[in-house]
């Protein structure tokens, strides 16, 4: 370690004085030595995957492989590598924001899997990634985030189900954390010690998979079940930054979708369903969420969302719907339209997730399953264009609500029976009676 006075500590009491040039050289060399995590380059990303295999071989970590039991489908990622996307027996890593205030995002997704007869696990032994406290507040640290990541991954491993991550931020954060755990011994050992304290081991997924990638590989099965003709529906897509900008190498691209220049998921689903996919100039811009901003600097979020996304999208595409694949994007792009509209701006567009759009096209109930009543921007013209009688559906929903109010238990969307048994020691999935807290 180079000291401030230009010396290097050699032994207990021994110090070596360096010339200025040598000190500089030493600093460069030690800096290069430290630079071994190598975020951000394809070559180094692939090296990390190799390192993961080495650690597995040495017995330092358990790798949760995408085995044939998960019926994987290969996709091309930006790195050029083929990534295996598990299609069944997935462990649903839910998103706190989606479940909290866009419940139709999840219920539509579960409904699709259930309709396709694909088993999954919805676990109550799950936390979010807690990365809000990383990206938004700086109130976490790499060890905590990695421990949370691996705790959840260990639960999925115990349940013998492959983690499928719903939130773009969780997906991005977990990619960062996996990197740190694999490439940095110090963090790995600190995380190991903490996990030991909670009775868990280091289980690292071979692939980190976002649910939009699952929907992408399942799009033809989804399209085969289409009940509503969407060929006259004009669709604009917003891709979430944390899925494809944060460690970009690992997200799905397809040369047949948008020329392979933009991520394939979500656009591919709209195309498979037969909708008209429209491009626009500000495609690359974020939604304006900004973490802290959506809560406490809302004018900034709102202005960005409306003037950099909603308005240009509507003006350029005249789309009927804006589809996206992340929690924050649905929230920001949908809710940020209220104030500009009140101020007299005219451009507006409904904002829903790809899962909701696909489920609607497959004939899911727009309110009981897709929960569109939680969305603000007017979805009625979209439903009308899809040939869905929203008035009748809303009446059904009101009557359903009355029954629930009267004590009726909702008809829960259930996973078809699983083929795989939980691994030894793990509790089978348990759901207690729902409670009104």
């Amino acid at each position, binding site marked *: 370690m180079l000291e401030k006075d230009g010396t290097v500590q050699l032994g207990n009491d021994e110090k070596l004085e360096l010339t200025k040039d040598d000190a500089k050289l030493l600093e460069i060399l030690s800096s290069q030595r430290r630079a071994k995590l190598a975020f951000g380059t394809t070559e180094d990303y692939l090296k990390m995957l190799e390192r993961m295999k080495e650690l597995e071989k040495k017995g330092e970590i358990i790798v949760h492989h995408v085995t044939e039991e998960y019926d994987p489908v290969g996709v091309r990622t930006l790195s050029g590598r083929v990534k295996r996307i598990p299609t069944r027996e997935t462990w649903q890593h839910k998103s*706190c924001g989606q479940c909290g205030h866009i419940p139709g995002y999840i219920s539509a997704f579960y409904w699709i899997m259930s309709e396709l007869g694909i088993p999954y696990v919805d676990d109550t032994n*799950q936390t979010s990634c807690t990365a809000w406290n990383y990206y938004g507040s700086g109130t976490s640290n790499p060890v905590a985030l990695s421990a949370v990541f691996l705790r959840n991954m260990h639960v999925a491993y115990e349940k013998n189900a492959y983690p499928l991550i719903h939130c773009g931020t969780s997906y991005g954060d977990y990619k960062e954390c996996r990197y740190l755990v694999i490439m940095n011994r110090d963090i790995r050992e600190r995380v190991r010690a903490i996990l030991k304290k909670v009775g868990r081991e280091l289980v690292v997924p071979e692939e980190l998979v976002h649910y939009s990638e699952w929907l992408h590989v399942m799009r033809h099965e989804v399209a085969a079940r289409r009940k509503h003709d969407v060929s006259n529906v004009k669709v604009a897509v917003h891709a979430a930054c944390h899925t494809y900008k944060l460690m970009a190498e690992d997200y799905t691209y397809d040369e047949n979708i948008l020329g392979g220049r933009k991520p394939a998921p979500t656009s591919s689903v709209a195309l498979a369903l037969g909708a008209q996919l429209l491009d626009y100039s500000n495609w690359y811009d974020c939604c304006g969420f900004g973490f802290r901003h959506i809560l406490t600097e809302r004018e900034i979020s709102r202005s960005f969302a409306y003037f950099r996304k909603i308005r240009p999208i509507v003006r350029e595409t005249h789309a009927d719907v804006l589809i996206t694949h992340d929690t924050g994007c649905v929230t920001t792009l949908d809710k940020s339209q209220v104030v500009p509209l009140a101020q007299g701006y005219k451009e507006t567009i409904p904002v829903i997730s790809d899962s909701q759009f696909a489920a609607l096209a497959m004939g899911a109930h727009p309110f009981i399953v897709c929960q569109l009543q939680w969305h603000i921007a007017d979805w009625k013209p979209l439903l009308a264009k899809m040939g869905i009688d929203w008035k009748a559906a809303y009446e059904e929903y009101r009557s359903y609500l009355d029954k629930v109010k009267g004590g009726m238990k909702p008809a829960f969307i259930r996973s078809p029976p699983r083929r795989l048994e939980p691994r030894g020691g793990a509790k089978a999935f348990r759901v207690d009676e729902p409670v009104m807290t």
Partner: protein
Amino acid sequence: MDSRYAAKLVSRLGEDGWHYGGLPGLQWEAENARSADRSVMIQVVEELRNDTRFEEFYRACINCGNCTSMCPPFRLVDFEPRIVVQKVMHAKDEPELLYQMMDQYIWSCFQCYSCWEVCPAHNNPGGLVAILKEIAVRHGLPSTKKALEPYSKILYKIMTTGTQITPDMHTTVALFRDWGPHKAELAKDIRVERAAVPVESMAGVMDKSWKVDKETMNELMTIQKESGVVDSVRHTLKDVADMVDDTAKEAGVE
């Protein structure tokens, strides 16, 4: 321009005649940095450079401005990822440059990582900001407290339940009032609406995003404590850290 103002601008220039970090007129934070404790400034630089992620997030800035051209907050506020990297680049010699950003500047970042994806030198300005935010929290800077206090309830929820925006936040119009009349409509019957969600792990759950097992929350709180998160937060939001401690204690988490 009057001569006194001109002299003030000149006095802000570095020895090489450059003013790192944009137009001098925008650099009101420089004044704050001048009056700050220099030992803290140096410590901030050291903590940044010693962070595991630093060598990966910062390589060398060629000042091309690609990052800024893609930066969402740059469209609306005084924030540029290029400036972040430039100040980091010179921080060792001029720690006050970095410290200027600690006050408020870094809190403008959206953490969208558009900057990272487009940087030809593989710098990650958003990542550097994330490290700086953690340092700001550890040092309990007053501006950090101001930035985080409005959503301390969410910080607490994440640390203790692992979930955040929850349905009970929609029971009043107050929070998210700019959602308009729809919010009032939603708030009216939200408990029934929530009970009717056809997913068993979510139905009826108001105070969390889904039903989280007690043991799961206990494991999470253990992680938060053991990894030093709670102690770090204590420097900035003592009340939140105390509440997490109390909740952990009640739950029997050592």
